[in-house]
């Protein structure tokens, strides 16, 4: 086992365990905090995959923005402890079993993937020499310019939508 593999093993076990922690916490605040740790681990995984930019936005956007939004909402809603007493729905054993089957099937299928397309031009050396951000930027602003602009529109819609939805309406009720 190389050092690489060791670190991957640690990360894989940690990510799996943390995921279980996240979904089983009684208090949503705790779940979000576990999620934060999980995201840091995923960011590290990205670094191993030569994706420094992704690691950065994983921390900044996911951990820094989205999770903070979650925390805000949780604080805002002031969920009573009574409500948190029962964590799971009645159908939870069925859910776990069925999902386990799905996962198992997926693993079986994915193991058999053996056809791969020819390697692309972005070899590790090239990315290293150019720098990850520059490579991503170049691709993003040339080949994927239109989706990029559409993404900005989606964000705009989200902003407006969130404001409209969360606004207190006068006269309603």
């Amino acid at each position, binding site marked *: 086992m190389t050092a690489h593999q060791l670190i991957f093993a640690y990360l894989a076990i940690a990510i799996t365990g943390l995921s279980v922690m996240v979904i089983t916490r009684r208090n949503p605040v705790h779940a979000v905090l576990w999620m934060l740790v999980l995201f840091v681990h*995923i960011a590290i995984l990205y670094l191993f995959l030569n994706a420094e930019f992704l690691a950065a936005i994983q921390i900044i956007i996911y951990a820094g923005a989205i999770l903070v939004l979650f925390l805000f909402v949780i604080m805002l809603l002031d*969920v009573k402890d009574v409500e948190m007493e029962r964590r799971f729905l009645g159908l939870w054993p069925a859910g776990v079993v069925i999902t386990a089957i799905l996962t198992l099937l997926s693993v079986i299928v994915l193991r058999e993937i053996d056809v791969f397309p020819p390697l692309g031009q*972005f070899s590790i050396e090239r990315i290293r020499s150019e720098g990850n951000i520059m490579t991503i930027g170049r691709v993003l602003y040339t080949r994927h310019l239109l989706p990029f602009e559409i993404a900005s529109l989606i964000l705009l819609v989200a902003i407006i939508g969130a404001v409209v939805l969360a606004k207190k309406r006068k006269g309603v009720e």
Partner: protein
Amino acid sequence: MVPLSWYILLSTVVFGIGVIGFIIRRNLIMIFLSIELMLNSVNISLAAFSHYLQSMTGQILVFFVITVAAAEAAIGLAIIIALYRHKPSITAEEVNLLKG
């Protein structure tokens, strides 16, 4: 060297955990959190493919997934707030207007 299939395996397992979370939790916020978990598992596999196939497209996709996740989180949480204002509860069983 770590084989690609390990990453895929990790991604699948995390995705499954996310699905379980989605199905079994009562709290709507937790359901949302599970969705974020699923998105992240997919991101892992995308990034892994990007690395192993030496193609940038995977990373670009991750970028877009994160964008959409942010939008989705904003809208979803806004819906939760609106729901909460309507009926002071955020358990999945209470939100059953679609019940036939």
